[in-house]
């Protein structure tokens, strides 16, 4: 059964490049992203950096459908994501974490992760539809075997995913999510994203608020993921340049909603334009000159 579901997933997934073409979004007079165009080939680990207000988080919101672009297209492999609602995009294999780390406070840790398996349970998106509303309700009420077997299988996967984080999450599986520490809430969010077996993983400042040990631990985990799942595309927004250097094979620097530099970490972080973007020196002198 487990193999069957994995095979079904493999048969229906088309991990491909994430393509943004001229993606523009304005909030009133503010241009949050301005004709952003780039392609992330399948399996790449891309870091997006830039000063506050550069439009990095808006980019994640755009790709995941929480914000709709005013212009431009967003595609993942064969799928056009531009006008889809968030849950459809998620079902197509795009998982994300939030900048503010959104867990389900009143659910237990295990339940929170299981929420991420719901699409695989009922089908849809990359998988053929398995249980429509009536079929699912009937399966639950009468304890029908097909649904129950799939449910058990996904519970096993949730367990395996929680155990990826060592003893950080699994021993706390029956504790409510709100009782977790800040760092553990971030881990839980990433676990919920991973359990969905995504093709594209978007991490919005995954190490924010973590101390150096925890940051290192999470960076190692992401490196491990990248090695274990070569087809998984990872796009992360990250402020800690050390993490960027350790993980990313490519860096996009954003400023004022536009792509400023698109290069390897070494080149990008050494670029003088990046330094001025962060410190704003050239801009100010320009404005005064």
């Amino acid at each position: 059964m487990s193999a069957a579901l994995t095979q079904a997933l493999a048969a229906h997934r088309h991990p491909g490049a994430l393509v943004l073409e001229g993606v523009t979004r304005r909030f009133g007079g503010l241009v949050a992203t301005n004709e952003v165009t780039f392609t992330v080939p399948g399996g790449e680990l891309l870091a997006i950096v830039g000063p506050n207000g550069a439009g990095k988080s808006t980019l994640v919101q755009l790709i995941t459908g929480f914000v709709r672009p005013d212009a431009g297209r967003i595609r993942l492999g064969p799928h056009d994501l531009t006008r889809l609602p968030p849950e459809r995009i998620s079902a197509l294999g795009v998982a994300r974490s939030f900048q503010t780390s959104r867990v389900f406070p009143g659910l237990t840790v295990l339940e929170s992760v299981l929420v991420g398996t719901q699409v695989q349970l009922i089908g849809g998106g990359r998988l053929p539809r398995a249980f429509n509303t009536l079929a699912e309700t009937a399966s639950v009420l009468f304890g029908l075997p097909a649904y129950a077997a799939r449910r058990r299988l996904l519970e096993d996967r949730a367990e395996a995913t929680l155990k990826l984080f060592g003893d950080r999450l699994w021993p706390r599986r029956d504790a409510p999510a709100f009782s977790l520490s800040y760092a553990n809430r971030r881990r839980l969010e990433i676990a919920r994203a991973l359990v969905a077996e995504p093709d594209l993983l978007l991490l919005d400042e995954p190490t924010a608020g973590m101390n150096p040990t925890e940051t290192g631990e999470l960076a190692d985990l992401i490196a491990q993921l990248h090695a274990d799942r070569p087809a998984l595309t990872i796009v992360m927004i990250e402020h800690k340049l050390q993490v960027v250097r350790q993980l990313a094979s490519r860096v996009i620097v954003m400023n004022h909603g536009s792509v400023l530099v698109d290069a390897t970490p070494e080149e990008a972080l050494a670029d003088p334009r990046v330094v001025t973007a962060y410190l704003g020196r050239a801009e100010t002198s320009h404005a005064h000159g």
Partner: protein
Amino acid sequence: MIELFLSQLLNGLVIGSVYALIALGFSLVFGVANLINFAQGALLMLGAFFAFTLIQWGLPIVVAGLLSVLATAAVGMLVERLALRPLRNAPAIAPLLSTLAIAVIADAGAELIWSAESQPFPSPLQSFVVFVGGAFLTGVDIATFIVSLAVMGGLMIFLSRSWTGRALRATAQDPEAAAQMGIDVALMRQIAFGLAGALGALAGILVAMYYQSVFPQMGVPFGIKGFAAALLGGLASIPGAVLGGFLLGIFENLASGYVGEGSRDLIAYSLLILVLMVRPQGLLGTGKLEALGGVGGASGAIPTTSIIASLGGATARTRNWVLRPKLWMMLAAIALAAVLPWLGSAYIVQVAAGCAVFAMLALSLTLLSGSAGIISIGHAALFGFGAYLCAILGRNHGWPVEGILAAAAFGTALMAAVATLPAIRLTGHAVALATLAVGQVGYLLFLNWIELTRGPMGIAGISRGTLLGIPMQPLDRQYWLALLLLAVCYVIAHRLLESPIGRSWRAIREDRPAAHAAGVPVRRYLVLAAATSGLIAGLAGAQFAWLQAFVSPDSFVLETSIVLISMVVLGGMGNIAGAVIAGVLLAILPEALRAFDDWRMIVYGLILLALLRFRPQGLGGVR
């Protein structure tokens, strides 16, 4: 033809200016406290009655009006003290339900003090008439319009020019930043409530003069319409409230002029639902949907859309102990209740059957409002839908009991799914409003669709028929059927809640954006929650119709919905065992209070208020 149009337009402008006043009260409070103040209608009613009493004491109407405005402003501040300030760390839904409880207490209190009957309100300017083209305006119309415009203008100047007004607006924009600038945010909230009280009282006096009468139930319709106006314009937008008021007044009057007077309220509520569906931020509002839901901000709090989670991050407080009996225990308890008929008292069986009906209703509502987080203040309409289906199909069409049960269950499930659609895109307080409007539309249909429902007369002589060949006429059998249905519904609710379906409901309640991001088909699960809730409510309604052998709109009023939501809070939101227990307790209560029947709603209101203050997790704990 043009005369009718002109006269309805002028009437619309006049009554619209009153709606604008009420809407301003809502907008001020919503802006500053992020709370939909359900007591606004009660403030309006109290203002009118204060003035009424003062006039009876012999004061001139202007003096009486001014004193009433001051007194009601004080009552408004008291509402803030009772409903908002002590509940800063309570669940997000608590202040809203508190204002609802205060409204219930005020309405029932007014009936005790001033009698439930409508009383004439003096209207000295009524005989003064001016003709405008083919239409005419009375002195009251002109006075209403001028006073409203003057007050609106004064309020605008106050908000934009005075220090206090600017502090109010600053508090509305960002309470934390305002506090850091040295603004006393708590005081600003109190001032907003005081202003809302004053505006409400003024609107109440104008309404009383306009219709030349005062009565305790006047608060609810005008409160809802003021709210509809505020929402139409954009909730937190002051110019929007004024625009919304005028638009609603004109629209409603044109509708009543061209379609018929009976459609006036129906049109107003339908407009409210339409706005919520199409443009929930209102005409002039810019706030995103989240602004209506009170999504916790940054500042370290765990983000959540849950109406159950507390604002201050003290979520743990509401979740220390949870009653979760095994399924067989609840079934055994229900089975044990089946022996009651052998006590030999028909009275006890009658009361116990009523308890079973209300236990089913509480169970039904706790799935929708507690588990899935769609707070509903219109659940009585679904209950009524089931009851009327039973009455009409059984009495007029001779359907067998089996057919009626199926129709009540699945018909109401379908109705619930459709009726909940307007609320699905909304969050938090706006949901409460949408369901309130839907509930009122249901009630108005029961009342006004006379060919089908016989209107206020109700449908009498509902036969109990035979079920699977067993005659159901004896009360004992009806009682056992009620218990059986309760047991079946409990099993359904239990199985769904303990499955991935229930997990998805709770995930959507806890954090809707995260549920979307995790790929949960939110609409599918909310529709399923509504349908399940409707199925149970429909069965309860059919059972109710058989027990009473009579249905009338009086059983499905707003107060019934409030009693139901009280049961859900008492049981612990989302806690099905708690809901059943609370349903039984609150259904027995009126029997215990039979000698003080006038006090019944006051007692319900006080119970709700005390619960929210001292035990927001209810008896059974939040699940």
